[in-house]
């Protein structure tokens, strides 16, 4: 069942220099329990889109249906109540600087009038869940970026939300911390069954945890589908730009060129590359390789430089195709 439906969502900002169409006719259905990615370049309209989901920004037209309720129709008080079921974490963490980690997690509970003792008990459990049981008394200024985001996650979970919106939640973090935070989100999704929406400009983030992804470009959905498929065969220009940040694809293959090989599913377990080199009897240079775990299937890509000899290159391509690998030449 869809927990969240965006129907024909449009947002126009009226500015001094005319109006900006930040979002145009966005239609997305997000299933309960999934981790859904929204990816796009900077300025694509991602933040506007998340802000429209919990109505921090009022859509110019279109509907936001959350758990069967049409949010755009609600009165202020009712909306405030629904908002506790849609939590949000941010790139800049947005913690209360004058409150300890524990008190930050208590904050949303305080807002809904939960007694102090009860709130603190729950906050402690949540801090333990995010691995910060020992930092309850620390102020945000005393915590690292990753720890701050963990506190923010604990705080977001305090009201038992059904949906967690993450707007560039890892963009201010280093790669190692990013990985740890994404693992935590995956864990939360698995343990608590919370639907997670990941907004990012980084393909690697989507690859790591999103089952499905929508590519947003110029305020419109360019493409929407299963992450591993979009990753393997991006159709829209916008998706291609994100998957191959620095190169376009060509259909012709020639010796000495670069070849991108996409692994998805069981093949990547086998020593394909080694076998190919043995069979053709020519070495290749691996220019770039990245393997990921998308939704528990091994997915990855590798860019190799083919032998200068056209025949040998042709043999390699034949071998890879025979093994059902998706290949494309990368134009330099």
């Amino acid at each position, binding site marked *: 069942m869809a927990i969240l439906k965006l129907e024909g969502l449009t947002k126009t900002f009226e500015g001094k220099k005319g109006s900006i169409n930040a979002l145009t006719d966005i239609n997305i259905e997000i299933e309960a329990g999934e981790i859904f990615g929204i990816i796009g370049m900077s300025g694509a309209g991602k933040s506007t889109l998340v802000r429209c989901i*919990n109505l*921090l920004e009022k859509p110019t037209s279109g509907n936001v249906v959350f758990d069967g309720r049409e949010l755009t129709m609600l009165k202020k008080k009712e*909306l*405030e*109540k*629904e*908002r*506790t079921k*849609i*939590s*949000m974490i*941010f790139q*800049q963490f*947005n*913690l*209360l*600087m*004058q*409150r*300890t980690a524990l008190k930050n997690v208590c*904050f*949303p509970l*305080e*807002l*809904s009038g939960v007694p102090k003792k009860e709130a603190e008990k729950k906050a402690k459990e949540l801090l333990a869940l995010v691995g910060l049981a020992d930092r309850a008394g620390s*102020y*945000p*200024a*005393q915590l690292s970026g990753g720890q701050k985001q963990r506190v923010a996650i604990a705080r977001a979970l305090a*009201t038992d939300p059904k949906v967690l*919106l993450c707007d560039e939640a890892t963009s201010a973090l280093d790669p190692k911390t990013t990985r740890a935070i994404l693992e935590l989100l995956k864990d939360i999704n698995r343990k608590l069954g919370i639907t997670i929406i990941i907004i990012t400009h980084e393909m690697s983030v989507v690859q790591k945890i999103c089952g499905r992804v929508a590519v947003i470009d110029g305020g419109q959905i360019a493409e929407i589908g299963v992450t591993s498929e979009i990753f393997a065969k991006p159709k829209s220009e916008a998706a291609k730009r994100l998957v191959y940040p620095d190169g376009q694809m060509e259909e012709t293959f020639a010796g000495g060129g670069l070849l991108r090989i996409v692994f998805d599913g069981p093949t990547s377990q086998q020593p394909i590359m080694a076998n190919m080199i043995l069979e053709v009897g020519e070495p290749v240079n691996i220019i770039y390789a990245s393997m990921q775990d998308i939704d528990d299937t091994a997915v990855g890509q590798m860019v190799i430089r083919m032998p200068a000899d056209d025949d040998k290159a042709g043999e390699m391509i034949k071998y890879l195709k025979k093994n059902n690998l998706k290949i494309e030449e990368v134009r330099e």
Partner: protein
Amino acid sequence: MAQMIFEGILETLYMTIASTMLAYLFGLPLGVLLIVSDKNGIKPMPTLNAIISFIVNIFRSIPFLILLVAIIPFTRLVVGTMLGSTAAIVPLTVAAAPFVARMVETSLKEVDAGVVEAAESMGASTWQIISKVLLPEAKPSLITNATVTVITVLGYSAMAGFTGGGGLGDIATRYGLYKFDTATMWLVVLVIVVIVQILQEIGLRIAKVTDNRTR
């Protein structure tokens, strides 16, 4: 002499503290209203914002000495007399409240918009954002600015001496201006300087101790 200066100190502190407190009683809500009703605020009310801003600006433009004299009828109405420290509290409050409003506005403006947005996303009401986010997060800045306010009001209170407001300003004026006793005048000025130093130091200490961003 010592007795007179001692009484002057008490009168000055009485005027300063009472006026500052009253100025906050009126100025704090006005400052909050200015922030909240701003076009980018949590509850935009452009017309109300423009009206408050206009009134605040008018009162802030009037030089204190002129205000002091201009509102004598109002002071009489409130206190019954225009003489003495209690009477001086009226013009001091009228002058300081708009000042406080702007100070509070400045402090609250420093609160990160992202934190306010986070609270909104959690379903916080306007009042909850004011009481649980804006004011507590701005606390160190509010205290620093309150120190500036106290010292400014102390300076004004010395001027209130001109119209018989009492306090150290009164003594300094009487001895320096009318009796040509510059020694006493400078002694009184020295006392004022010491009081200002102490207030400043106390204010900064409290602001620092209560700020959890630096610990």
